[in-house]
Each structure stands twice: as C-alpha cells, then as structure tokens.
C-alpha cells in the first residue's frame, strides 16, 4: 500500500509538469509578441518594454521557464497585469463562492443520481428505467446556460421565489447563502447528475446479476438491504471514479454557471482575465484547476482500498 501510494504520488509529477509546460507555453503559442498582446492595441513602446521586464520576457526561454517554475513551487503565481494584485491573492479572494458551488453541486447530484441509478438498475428494462435513462441523455445534451437562464426567468424574475443573480457569503446568514446557491447548483448539477445516474445504473446492473446477490435474496434479506449494502458497496468503485473524472466537467461547468448567475468566483475571474488578456491570472487559474483535478483523482485512487478490501497494492 505504501509503495503503491508512493508510486501514485510520483505519477502526479509528469502530469503536473505537462500542465505546467502547457501553461507556460501559452504566452508563446500566440502570434506575435506576448507583451504587445497583453498591453493591447494602444500601448506605447515604453509600456510594452515595461511588461517585457515585468514578465522576464527578455530572458531565453529555458531560463524563463526555470524561473517561472521555481516561483510557482514557492507559491508565487505572479502578478496580475491588469490590477497589479498577486494572482495567489486574487484566487484566494474568489475561491469561496466557487468552492461553495462545487460542494453543493456534488452533494445535490449524488443525493439525486445515485438513488435514481439504483432504482433504474433494479427495475432494468421497465418504463421507469427507460425514462430515467432518457432523462439522463437529455440532461447531458442541454446547454448549461439554457437551464440556468430558464430557471432564472421563471423562479427569479417572474415568481420572485429566489434571488435572480449574485452570491451571498455564509457570514450574511444561512438563508441568503443557500437561496443564492439553489439555482446555480441545480443548473450545474444537471450534467453531473446525468453522468452519475448513467454510471450508477450500469455498475449496479452488472453487480445485481452476480451470484452473491441471489444468495442474499435467497436467505430472505430485505430488498433494501440487498440493494444498499450488498449491491451498492460492490458497485461503488466505478461510481466514485466517475465522480473524480467528472471534476473537470464540474469546473468547466462552474465557469459557465458563474457567468450566468453573476457569481464572483473563480469562473468570473477566468472570464475577466480572458477578456482583459491578463495572462498571469489565466496561467495561475489553469494551474490551480489542473492541480485540483489531479489531487482529487489521486485521493480517489488511494481511497479504493477503503471501498473495496479486495484491492491490494
């Protein structure tokens, strides 16, 4: 187990190195001088020269990469070209709304999709199963913003049940905090829910055809016990894997959802950075998002031994 964990941990290094090289090369992939690109169309040569020295663009490429990587390993993601604030500080300020949205979405979609998937698998082949799976395919295909705006117009603008847009921190009170999160959570949860319901059903269907399920039934256990204890436990590994792989989808969806609901989170920061050509911020955000994906999947891989005692490394 320890050697597996060590090997798995080492495996993170090449992945993050690729992410790092990509993020670094981003500035140099574009056509023309990156400093001129950042400065915009109306920059003076002096401003461009200033950005040059600010980003260290006058050094050779390997030196730039080495210096940049060294700074990142020391927790220094650079300074925003637009506001002059350090990228770490910017991300720290904006991370809470995104974290709240991500956690509430995972809780919401797991709470709904896993029972739905179990139910569909239990009733495999019936009309219930077909409608659940048809819904899952449809939810997959609907653009996030369409669901978001539709809900915003009906519940927020017309019926005044929920706040239309924005975000309230937990310090503003529990209900304002939750009420601002409901619509974004459902919007973002749609895709995740579809993904998880599909994999839960597929995994459960496979497990339910095993001999030990028949044995459990034959000894007179309640259907509920068999489904949740015997079947779900054995079907858990693919479901948890999908939750982990879905993190990339969740982050991408969160960026769109935050734009729709004007939530001042990391997604909003990303969009602003893209429109302002604020490269250090874009680079920092991609590194952070990539890191989150890698770490979550690492933890999930390591958690398999807890889920399934048969897995030994």
């Amino acid at each position: 187990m320890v050697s597996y964990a060590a090997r798995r941990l080492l495996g993170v290094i090449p992945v993050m190195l690729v992410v790092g090289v990509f993020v670094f090369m981003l500035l140099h992939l574009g056509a023309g001088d990156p400093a001129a690109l950042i400065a915009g169309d109306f920059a003076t040569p002096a401003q461009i020269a200033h950005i040059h020295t600010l980003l260290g663009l006058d050094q050779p490429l390997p030196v730039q990469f080495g210096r940049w990587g060294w700074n990142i390993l020391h927790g220094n993601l650079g300074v925003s070209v637009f506001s002059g604030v350090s990228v770490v500080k910017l991300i720290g300020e904006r991370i809470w709304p995104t974290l709240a949205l991500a956690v509430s979405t995972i809780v919401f979609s797991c709470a709904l999709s896993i029972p739905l998937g179990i139910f569909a698998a239990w009733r495999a082949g019936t009309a219930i199963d077909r409608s659940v799976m048809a819904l899952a395919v449809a939810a997959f295909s609907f653009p996030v913003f369409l669901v978001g705006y539709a809900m915003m117009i009906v519940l927020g603008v017309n019926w005044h049940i929920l706040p239309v847009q924005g975000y309230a921190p937990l310090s503003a009170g529990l209900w304002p905090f939750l009420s601002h999160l409901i619509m974004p959570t459902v919007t973002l949860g749609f895709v995740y829910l579809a993904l998880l319901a599909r994999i839960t059903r597929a995994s459960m269907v496979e497990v339910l055809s095993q001999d030990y399920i028949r044995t459990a039934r034959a000894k007179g256990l309640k259907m509920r016990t068999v489904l949740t204890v015997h079947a779900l436990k054995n079907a858990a590994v693919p479901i948890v894997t999908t939750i982990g792989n879905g993190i990339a989808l969740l982050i991408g969806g969160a960026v769109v959802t935050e734009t729709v609901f004007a939530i001042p989170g990391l997604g909003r920061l990303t969009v602003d950075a893209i429109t302002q050509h604020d490269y250090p911020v874009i680079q920092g955000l991609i590194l952070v998002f990539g890191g989150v994906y890698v770490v979550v999947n690492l933890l999930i891989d390591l958690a398999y031994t807890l889920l399934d005692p048969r897995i030994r490394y």
Partner: protein
Amino acid sequence: MVAAIEPPAHRRPWRLPRLVGWRSPLRGRGALIGAAAVLIVIAAVSIAAPLITDVSPQELDPISRLLPPAADHWFGTDGLGRDVFARTLYGGRISLLVGFGVAVLTTVFGLLIGAIAGFARLADELIMRVMDGLMAIPGILLAAALMAVSHPGLTTVIVAISVPEVPRMVRLVRSMVLSVRERPFVEAAVLSGTRLPRLLLRHVIPNILAPVVVQATFAFAMAILLESYLSLLGAGIPPGIPSWGNIITDSINTVRTAFWPILFPGLFVAITVLAVNILGDSLRDFLDPRFVRQVRMAGSAP
C-alpha cells in the same frame, strides 16, 4: 438488428435484471433513423437559410427591437432589431461547421497520435503522459485559454475546441491498436513484410474504425456545446459571423425582458447535441455491440 423484445410486466417487488434482448428507447434502429432525420433537417434548414428567409441575419431594424415571436418574426427580434429566426438558421451553418471541423480534426489527429503510441513503445510513454496532462485541464478552460492567445476566428475556434477532444480519441485509438496488433492477421501481415504505413491503413485502422466513428460523433456534440460556452465566456467566434453561441451571447444583457433570442438558438443547440448523442449511442450498438465497453472506458464525451 434484432427488434426490441418487450420485457414482461413486473408486479413482484424483486427481480434480477435481464438485459438480453433489451434495448433502451434511445437506441436501436428507430432511434438511429430518428436522430439522423432530425440532424438532416437541421443541416438542411441551415444550408438553405437564404431560400427559407429573405431577411439578412445582420440586418438592423431599430424600430422593431425585442419583439416577441409573431407571424412576421417567428422567433422574435433581438435588442438590435435583428430577426432571431434568420440568425438561428444562419448561425447553424457556422455551429455545425465547428462541430464537423472538430470531429474531423479530432479523428485525424487521434488516429495519428494514437497509432504512434500503440506501435512505438518509446513514444508511447511520453505521448500518454502529455495526454494525461491535457485531460487534467477542464476542456472549456483549455479552449478558452487557447482562444485568449490567438486571433479569434472560425478556424481558431475549431482548433481550440479540438485540442481538449484529441486526448480522449488518442486513448481510445491506442487501446484499440494495442488489442488489434496482437491478432493473427496483423502478425501475418507483419511476417509477410508489410510496411508500417500500409499495415496501419489496410489492416489496423479499418478494424478500429467503428468505435472511432462513434467517438467522433461525441466530439461533434461536445464541440457544438463548447462553441456556445466559448462565446458566453467572451472567447468565441467574433460577432461578425452569427453562430448559435454568439447569437445567444449578444442577447444576454436583455435576457430579463426578452428570453426568446436565447431560447431558440439554445434549443437548436440542445436538439442538435441530443440528436448527435443518440445517433452516437445507437451507432455504437449498430456497428458493433462488442465495442460498447471500450468506448465507455476511454471516457466518452458527456
């Protein structure tokens, strides 16, 4: 294809799932034909847009701003008085082109890189680590970041969306190549002195084409969604040429008073993506049911 066999009605609280002979309503021949028909209609009305409406998608009409759907403006007008129906039809040309372009690029590069990884053991490790790294970055962000450093345009959008789609295809192609190259007919070809390019083109690729085509349909669906997301994030196709994405983005500021400029192109996106996904699912069963697992495990695009 075998016709779907209806399972018996269930009254008992418990039964073991039986999957033999069962098909989802969104699969099988009926679904395949239905989804293909929907796509053909959408493609046809987009291509034939000038024949269907004589209104220009860019024509401004300040007097008739934000009109709700009515007889003379089927989908209403937007904040600049442009006809949403005409814009949606013309936008389909660009959005479908993006989907098609991404599907083709993803397939070509996926086959190329995947085949190299599957055959060259030295390159394999390096290629797969690069693919792992690219897959760690959320697709929308990867595409948006690439758009931020390039001149926005149709070609750059197609390339930017293809980059996050290629790793999935590479993984699929590599795993298929690895299994195919152990098969006797490949060994026989190698022993009879077939060179690598011919071996790939004549023996390997034809045998892995079915799951690749299925994966390409998922890339198509994902591309249409990503095109609209990119516009929404301000990194999409410039507003000069209407696409479903930038039609929607143009009307976001007026969404509280007028929902239709977003609803109709949004529905076209949803219906197209749904049809392509259904097409992909049923194509998968139709081409070869054995490949179902392999495509799934390579991480089909949601």
